[in-house]
C-alpha cells in the first residue's frame, strides 16, 4: 500500500560530533594507547570506517584493573557516600547537556535510528545515573541488610545493541555502591563509551574510578578472568554467559548475567487490535530487533489470527527503513556484517523448515547492512526461528486457542527474560502474568524500561537484576537482594 504522505528527508546533522581518526583506551583518567591489535569501527549504514580503536591486551587490562584497585582502596572506597553521589549527579547532567552529540554518535556507530538514540537510549542512560546517584548515601536504607559494603573492582562486559545505555546500567550502580570499574564495550560499538570517558573527565571523577578497555572477545576474557576483579557483570549471548559462569566458577567473584531471550508476545481475542499491532511492531522492530527482550514470538489467539496478521502487515508497510540519522526513519541498519549473516541464515532456515516468510516491499540502501522487517507465519514451536534468538527484525507467529495453551507455549523455551500480554481483561492479565516464567512482563505495552524497575531473566536468560533496589545487591557485600 502506498502512503498518501511523502516524507522529505530530515537528516540530523552529524557535524555536532567530532570523531578522531583513532582512539586508545581510558585508564586511570587518561586516554592511552592500547597494546593490542587495533580494530576499525564502521558505520553499519554506510560501511564507512569511522575510526580506528586500539584493543586492550591482557597487559592493558592488568593496568586498568590495577588503577581501579588503587582508586577503590585510596579514593573512591573511603569517599563520603554523599560525594560519590554528587559525582554521579554531575555525570547525569553532563549526559543530558551533551545528549544530542551522544545520540548522533550512537546512531553513527550502531546504526540505530536517531529517533531511538535521541528519545530512548540517551535519556535513559542519564536517568540511570540520576537514579543511582541518589542511592549512594542511602544504602543503609535500601533494605539489603545492615551495613552493605562495596565489593571492590567490577569487571563489566557489555553488548553492541544499546552501547551507552548498557554502560549506564553497569557503571551507575557499581559507582553508587562504591565500586570502581573496568568496562569493555563491544567491538563494533566502542565510541559512545569513549565519549563517556570525556564526561568522566569533565565531571572531575577521580582517575581510575572508570576505566574503559575496548576490544573483542579476548579483551573481555581478560577482564572476566582477571584475578583482582571482585565482581563480573555481563550482558550478551547465553553462550558467552555460560563460558563466563564457567570461568568464574570456584572463585570468590560475584556474577550477574543478562543473557538472551525469546519472548512470547501473547495477543488474546479481546485485545484492542490496533494497540496490540503497535505493541507487536514496537516489540520486535524496536532497535532493528537487536533487543534481548524483543517480542520475537507472537502468540496470537487462533480466531483473530488473520485479522491481526492483515493489520500487522498493513502497519509494517508504513515503516521507513533507511538512514539512521534521518528523523523519519523507523528501522535503521543491522549492526554488523556478522549479525546480518546470522539473521539471513536463521531466516532461510525458517523458509526451509516450512514457515511462510513475508516482507514488505521496501527499497534498501545499496551500501551498509540491511534486513527488511520480516514476519513468519505457519511457524511450529519446533522451528529454529521459534526457538533461537534471531536478534534481528524477524517475527515468528504461532497460534493458540486457550489461555492454558498460550502459557504452555510461552513457557516452552529455555529462555525467560520477558513476555507480553494483550487483553482488555484485567483478571486475565494478572493470572497470565503470574504463570509466565519471565523476569519482565509487559501487559498492553512492550519494551518499557526505567532505572527504578528491576530487569533480568529467569532460566537461561541469566541471573541477577539490574535497576531498582534489587540491582544494587549485585554490587554489595552482605546484601540480601
Amino acid at each position, binding site marked *: 500500500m502506498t502512503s498518501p504522505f511523502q516524507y522529505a528527508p530530515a537528516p540530523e546533522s552529524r557535524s555536532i560530533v567530532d570523531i578522531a581518526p583513532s582512539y586508545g583506551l581510558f585508564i586511570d583518567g587518561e586516554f592511552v594507547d592500547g597494546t593490542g591489535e587495533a580494530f576499525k569501527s564502521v558505520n553499519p549504514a554506510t560501511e564507512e570506517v569511522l575510526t580506528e580503536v586500539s584493543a586492550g591486551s591482557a597487559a592493558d587490562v592488568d593496568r586498568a584493573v590495577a588503577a581501579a584497585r588503587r582508586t577503590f582502596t585510596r579514593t573512591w572506597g573511603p569517599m563520603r557516600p554523599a560525594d560519590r553521589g554528587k559525582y554521579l549527579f554531575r555525570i547525569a547532567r553532563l549526559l543530558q547537556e551533551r545528549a544530542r552529540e551522544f545520540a548522533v554518535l550512537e546512531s553513527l556507530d550502531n546504526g540505530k535510528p536517531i529517533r531511538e538514540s535521541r528519545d530512548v537510549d540517551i535519556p535513559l542512560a542519564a536517568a540511570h545515573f540520576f537514579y543511582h546517584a541518589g542511592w549512594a548515601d542511602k544504602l543503609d536504607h535500601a533494605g539489603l541488610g545492615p551495613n552493605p559494603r562495596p565489593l571492590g573492582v567490577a569487571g563489566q562486559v557489555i553488548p553492541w545493541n544499546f552501547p551507552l545505555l548498557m554502560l549506564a546500567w553497569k557503571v551507575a550502580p557499581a559507582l553508587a555502591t562504591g565500586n570502581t570499574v573496568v568496562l569493555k564495550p563491544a567491538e563494533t560499538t566502542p565510541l559512545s563509551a569513549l565519549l563517556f570517558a570525556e564526561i568522566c573527565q569533565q565531571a572531575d571523577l577521580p582517575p581510575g574510578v572508570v576505566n574503559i578497555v575496548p576490544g573483542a572477545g579476548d579483551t573481555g576474557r581478560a577482564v572476566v578472568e582477571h584475578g583482582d576483579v571482585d565482581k563480573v557483570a555481563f550482558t550478551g549471548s547465553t553462550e558467552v554467559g555460560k563460558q563466563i559462569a564457567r570461568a568464574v*566458577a570456584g572463585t570468590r567473584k560475584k556474577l550477574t548475567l543478562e543473557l538472551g531471550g525469546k519472548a512470547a508476545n501473547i495477543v488474546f481475542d479481546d485485545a484492542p487490535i490496533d494497540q496490540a499491532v503497535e505493541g507487536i511492531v514496537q516489540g520486535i522492530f524496536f532497535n532493528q530487533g537487536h533487543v534481548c527482550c524483543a517480542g520475537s514470538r507472537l502468540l496470537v489467539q487462533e480466531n483473530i489470527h488473520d485479522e491481526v496478521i492483515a493489520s500487522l502487515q498493513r502497519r509494517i508497510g508504513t515503516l521507513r527503513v533507511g538512514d539512521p540519522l534521518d528523523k523519519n526513519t523507523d528501522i535503521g541498519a543491522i549492526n554488523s556484517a556478522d549479525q546480518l549473516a546470522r539473521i539471513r541464515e536463521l531466516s532461510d532456515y525458517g523458509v526451509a523448515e516450512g514457515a511462510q516468510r513475508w516482507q514488505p516491499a521496501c527499497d534498501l540502501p545499496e551500501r551498509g547492512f540491511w534486513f527488511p522487517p520480516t514476519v513468519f507465519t505457519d511457524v511450529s514451536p519446533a522451528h529454529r526461528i521459534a526457538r533461537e534468538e534471531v536478534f534481528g527484525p524477524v517475527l515468528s507467529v504461532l497460534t493458540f486457542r486457550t489461555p492454558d495453551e498460550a502459557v504452555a507455549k510461552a513457557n516452552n523455551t529455555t529462555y525467560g527474560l520477558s513476555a507480553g500480554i494483550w487483553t482488555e481483561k484485567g483478571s486475565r492479565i494478572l493470572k497470565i502474568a503470574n504463570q509466565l516464567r519471565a523476569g519482565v*512482563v509487559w501487559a498492553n505495552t512492550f519494551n518499557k524500561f526505567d532505572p527504578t*524497575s528491576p530487569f533480568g531473566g529467569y532460566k537461561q536468560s541469566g541471573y541477577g537484576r539490574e535497576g531498582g533496589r534489587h540491582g544494587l545487591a549485585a554490587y554489595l557485600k552482605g546484601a540480601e537482594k
Partner: protein
Amino acid sequence: MIGSERLAVRKTYKLYVDGAFPRSESGRSYEVTDAKGHFLANAAWASRKDARDAVVAARGAFGKWSAMTAYNRGQVLYRVAEVMEGRHVQFCEEVAAGEGLSASKARAAVDAAVDRWVWYAGWTDKLAAVLGGANPVAGPYFDFSMPEPTGVVAVLAPQQSSLLGLVSVLAPVLAGGNTAVVVTSKERPLPAVTLAEVLATSDVPAGVVNILTGDAGELGSWLAEHADVDAIDLTGAPERRAMEFEREAAGTVKRVVRPPAIEPDWTADPGLSRLTPFLETKTVWHPIGV
C-alpha cells in the same frame, strides 16, 4: 531363645521420592555408624536414576506448591514443625548418635532445628512485602516487582550438622515456593530420613521434597548438569568437587550457592541469605489510563 526382654524392631531407612519411600533402584545400600563407629543401620545409597526420578517428582510438584497461597504454604510448613516436635525424642537419639553429641547438646540442636523450621514457616507470606514493591517509573505505568520461586532446587545438605544444618538449607527453599531434591549428609543420614517421615505425614504435597541418602560427591555432578534443575546449593559438596559442580551448573545457567570455606555455625541468625538465592524477581508493567 525365649527371654523376657522384648526384641527391638529395627528400622529400614529408605529414600524419599515423590511422597513414597523406595529403596534405591540400584539396590545399593551402605553402612551408617555412630560417631564411635558402631553400626546403626543400612541406608539406601541413591543412584543416578534415583536422582533423576527425584527431579521428575520435584518438577511435577512445583506447579501446585508454587501456586499455593503464601498463607497456605506457611501453614503447611508450620505443620511440619508440629510433627517434628512430636518426633523430638527420635531426632535427639539420631542426632546424638550420628554427631556424637551429649543428650543435652543433641536436644539443643533439635530444638533449634524445630524453631528454625517455624521461623521459615512464618516467612512465606512476608517475602513479597519485604522483597517486592511498586516501582515509580517515569511514565504513565503501574509497575510492580514481586519475588517468585526459581523452580527445582538441588540441595547438597551440610555434611556435619545432620538435622539443624539440613533444616537450615531445606526450609528456606520451600518457604520461597521451590521444590527440592536433597542429598543428605553421607555419614549422618538418619535424621534426614526421619525428617522425610515427618514430611510424609504432614501436609506437604508429594514431590515437594525428595530426600536422597548417598554421596553428594557422586550425585552432585548429575544434579549440577541436569537441565531440569534450576538452582543448586553446594553447601555440602566435597571441597575438591565444588568448583567442578559449579562449572557443570554453568551449562544450564543454574543459580549456584557456593560452599562456605568451612561449615558455618548453623545456630546463627540466617537472615534472608538462604531465601533470596532461590527467588526470581518478576516485574510487571501496565499502562495507566482511562
